[in-house]
């Protein structure tokens, strides 16, 4: 760089002046110090149950928007539900990272079926999936239902299919589950909450 004597003095005095002014507190960027804005302000809060283990901790799911028709929400945060008596706001490391599970690229988002003899999973609709489950259950019940035992006593028993109930079910849902299964004659009923 070629610099004349005059330019050298100009640069020096400008630098000295600038740093002196800054030193006296006249900083050009006297930016305000503010905390990061609370990111859940006006987010939609949805109560739910953690899907991982049988403890079934209550969670609060926070999503963008106010559920208005033209603005579909996206989940931005999940934390423990302090009103849930199971966990009272706390979560384990898996529960604390729930948002990354919900938004995981590897997450299964629709029902799939692998037909007998096939090695490929095929995507089906929820209606098809529920119809299929109902058809399998009916077929099995029709084949194995026992109205009377060998002594001629009425038992109305369907013992070839078992049911594992959800641990996230409320008392009411649990009551309905048992009522429904007993009506079908099912004998093997268990719940994941016992595991």
């Amino acid at each position, binding site marked *: 760089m070629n610099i004349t004597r005059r330019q050298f003095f100009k640069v020096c*005095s400008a630098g*000295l002046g600038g*740093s*002196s002014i800054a*030193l006296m*507190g006249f*900083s050009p*960027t*006297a*930016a*305000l*110090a*503010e*905390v*990061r*804005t*609370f*990111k859940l302000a006006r987010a939609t809060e949805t109560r739910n149950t953690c899907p991982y283990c049988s403890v079934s901790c209550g969670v609060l799911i926070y999503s963008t928007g106010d559920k208005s028709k033209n603005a579909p929400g996206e989940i931005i*945060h*999940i*934390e*423990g539900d*302090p009103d849930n008596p199971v*966990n009272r*706001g*706390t*979560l*384990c*490391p*898996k*529960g*604390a*990272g729930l*948002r*990354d599970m919900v938004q995981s690229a590897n997450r299964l988002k629709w029902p799939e079926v692998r037909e007998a003899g096939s090695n490929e999973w095929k995507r089906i609709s929820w209606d098809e999936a529920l119809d299929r489950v109902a058809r399998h259950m009916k077929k099995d019940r029709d084949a194995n239902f026992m109205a009377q035992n060998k002594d001629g006593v009425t038992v109305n028993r369907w013992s070839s299919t078992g049911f594992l109930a959800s641990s996230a079910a409320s008392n009411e849902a649990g009551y309905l589950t048992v009522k429904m299964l007993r009506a079908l004659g099912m004998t093997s009923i268990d719940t994941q909450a016992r595991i």
Partner: protein
Amino acid sequence: MALQSLDIKQRSATTSPTPQARITLEVAKLIDVSACIGCKACTVACMEWNDVREEVGNCHGVYDNPVDLTENAWTVMRFSEVEQNDKLEWLIRKDGCMHCADPGCLKACPAPGAIVQYSNGIVDFHQENCIGCGYCITGCPFNVPRISKKDSKAYKCTLCSDRVAVNQAPACVKACPTGAIQFGSKEDMKDYAEHRITDLRERGYDKAGLYDPEGVGGTHVMYVLHHADQPNLYAGLPANPAISPLVSLWKGFAKPLATLALAGVALGSLFHYVTKGPNEVSKEIEDEIEKEDAK
């Protein structure tokens, strides 16, 4: 009326005084090391809340993962296997910013407003003002701040200042499933710690105590330790942390001296200008020099 949600007590590289009239609640986080099971729910909750994600690391043969604090992992669990009273003890300490009352990072920071201390005790980094010099790392007695390789700015635990500003507990505290992390007023936390220490002493840990080191004016993240007489057992927690003498040498001696020299030069130049006037160069000398330059 303040322009921010929390009153500012101290601001890095700023000499103008901050508002002092309002008295706000002094908060603290208490980590009861004896109740921690090392599940790392706090680490996950911290990353989730603060929108940072550490890369999935490798197993180093120990439970420490992430192995060290990073710009994305603002709190990590440090596991120490030690022998005490002929018994193996597995000590698990949640490491992170201690939010010192006398913060070494803030003292060392040369960027105005990059580090602030709120009146509730939280020490917060404002990355938009950070120049990435790394002086905060030198100033920190606990080796906590980390410079991001992505944006060359320093990051550390904020004690969830955004949550605390709206009266919510920090994310780690809320998640902790064993209640090993508690949050409240500093006074309440000391009371709670007293109750825990009494319990530990009854269980045979007669050296149990509170870690609230005086050398940094006390901290807003405190530990209940079963071996309070040997904090070093807990992955090298310093027994008497203090701000490095280099920081006070720079800020207390070298910087004022340099300032004085700078002011002296400015004053001298002014004096010289007034008494001698500008340096006049005659046409002949200028022509002569230009002739020399042309050669």
